[in-house]
């Protein structure tokens, strides 16, 4: 089959705000054997709709099916398979306060982030950047012994 190479794709699904709509979307992925790499949902301001962003992977045939099957769901208003997009992801990392805070601060600054909370034993850093750079940031942060890392899902907007 042509185009059978698995590639990463980001799709936005605009749905009507109604009960179990997220379950319909995720059940479709589970039932038809598609992958979800990350998923974010939030209401669209001043509307009765929500924006779901899904990062997934698959061949072009699979991507076409995902898009079409999503569109078949009754509460799905629109499906956008992103091509030219701005894509961001957020991560929160908790470091022990005993680590070198100025180094951590410099590291965060290099990835458009910073320390957002300081407690008696821990500091919390926040970074929002492209998913690839988030991955690099997490790798770089390992030397400061992070105790907890929480990654948000991807959000994307077409350019």
């Amino acid at each position, binding site marked *: 089959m*042509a185009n059978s190479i698995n590639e990463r794709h980001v799709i936005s699904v605009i749905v009507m705000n109604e009960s179990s709509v997220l379950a319909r979307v995720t059940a479709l992925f589970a039932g038809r054997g598609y992958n979800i790499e990350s998923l974010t949902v939030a209401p669209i301001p001043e509307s009765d709709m929500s924006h779901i962003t899904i990062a997934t992977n698959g061949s072009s045939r699979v991507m076409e099916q995902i898009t079409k099957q999503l569109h078949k769901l009754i509460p799905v208003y629109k499906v956008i398979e992103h091509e030219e997009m701005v894509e961001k992801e957020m991560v929160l990392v908790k470091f022990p306060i005993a680590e070198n805070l100025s180094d951590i601060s410099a590291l965060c600054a290099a990835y458009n982030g910073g320390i957002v909370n300081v407690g008696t034993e821990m500091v919390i850093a926040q970074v929002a950047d492209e998913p690839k750079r988030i991955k690099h940031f997490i790798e770089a942060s390992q030397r400061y012994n992070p105790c907890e890392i929480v990654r948000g899902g991807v959000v994307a907007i077409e350019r």
Partner: protein
Amino acid sequence: MQMSGAQMVCEAIIAEGVKTVFGYPGGAIMHVYDEIYKQNGFEHILNRHEQASVHAADGYARATGEVGVAMVTSGPGFTNAVTGLATAYMDSIPLVVISGQVPSQLIGTDGFQEIDAVGISRPCTKHNFLIRSLEELPRVLKEAFYIARSGRPGPVLVDVPKDITVEIGEFKYPDSINIPSYKPTYKGNKRQIEKAVEAIKSAKKPLLYLGGGIVLSNAADLVRELAEKTQIPAVETLMARGVMGAKNPLLLGMLGMHGNYSSNMAMSETDLVISLGARFDDRVTGKLSEFAKYADIIHVDIDAANIGKLVDVDYPIVGDITKVVEAMLPQLDDIDTDRFEAWRNILKRYDELHPQSYVDSDDVIKPQWVIERLGELLGENAIITSDVGQHQMWAAQHYPFDRPRQWINSGGLGTMGFGFPAALGAKRAFPDKTVINITGDGSILMNMQELVTAAEYKIPVINVILNNHFLGMVRQWQTFFYEKRYSETDLSFQPNFKALAEACGGIGYDVSTKEEFDAALKDAIEQDKVCFMNVQTNRFEDVLPMVPSGGALFNMMLPQKIDNSKEVK
């Protein structure tokens, strides 16, 4: 007008013009049943199992083209209905199923007879609703019927908590519908249709590949016109039997795993597949890489997700078959029909070489003979339903279906036990037609309690049991692919079918000769009562031709040309 939620359910059913509802009461749906008792806008048929209620509504929908309605209670009532929903879903049949649910405040507490109905039915309904408030009930009911019958049809579940059925509120059934996120495409893209027409005109060996979507779209007459105008030969899927009419010289037959030789060869050699409302099911295509290998493909389907799902399509057209074929026809006025003559002749030769055939016997009844005999005696007047297995395939191969909606069977899900309740629905819709359920000794037991329903409501359905004392289709696979290890398929231990039918208020016939069959059928039609006709048939008869699962369509196992009835296997 002020009324209870239960009354609203009944009013909506009446407003939709539904004449018959199939169902089974229970705790959570009792208020609705109380209103059913008080009204006379529709009749309610009490099946003896919820699965049968949904199949009966399904049979009603398939026979009429209208939305079938079934009603069940929460918990086990609903779970029993799931097979019915899935059956209708796989064959795109418009149904509205109303299920009771535990009172709103109990939802999520594992209450008595509580089950997450919308969760369970999500993958086997076109859409489903859990009613959250009385205010939304009229709108949701209206939307349920609309969603069920529009676009690619399908079953819709409306789950109604008990407290909402008691609550009183204002009822106004909406006149119109606005679902911004649901706008089915009916009209095909003009440019794509033009391109497809050009492809038809320049093809040398085109083939019409006709699917159940034609039946759903009520487009059979148009499709016949298209075939006749272009003189392009046609093959039908299991779900499209009757579209072309058995006598139509352009019809090659059914294709697929049990398709006839010329149909499967036509699909293997064609240079242009014109797919109308078919979805390239694995039972049709066989090995995909060999399927229509030399052909460009025109695919017309109302469901965009069907297009390009399994095969690459050269001319995709999303739209309703009726609308698309209507648009195609005038553009084909100048087609040169002689162009396809050589192709038609090749296919005719194929059919002469290996016609759909079997060798009859004088000693034992061949199942194919029964089907042919039914066809001779009843022809286009009967509605034929079937269960699932060998008898289903023989019926599809040998019955001379003349019109769409004459043939009612579970194609996609392959549900044993579908035929009898579906026949009840069809017979209720068309009381003047003879309705025959062609079934097997395995399948019939899966909804045999419907004998009681049929007897009580005087729904005279004739069940022709092609009895081979086997789960025949599985046995056939065991013969071919499991070295004759007949694991759990021997049904030698059987009920007394005649006595069983009689015990439930029907008639039974034991048939083991052709004469007895004719006599029994004549009597069954005259008696006008539900019956079991227990026909002893050749035990080891196989459904042929057969394309082994995953094989290429042109690699068929063909029927033997000798009498095999004395063969010991």
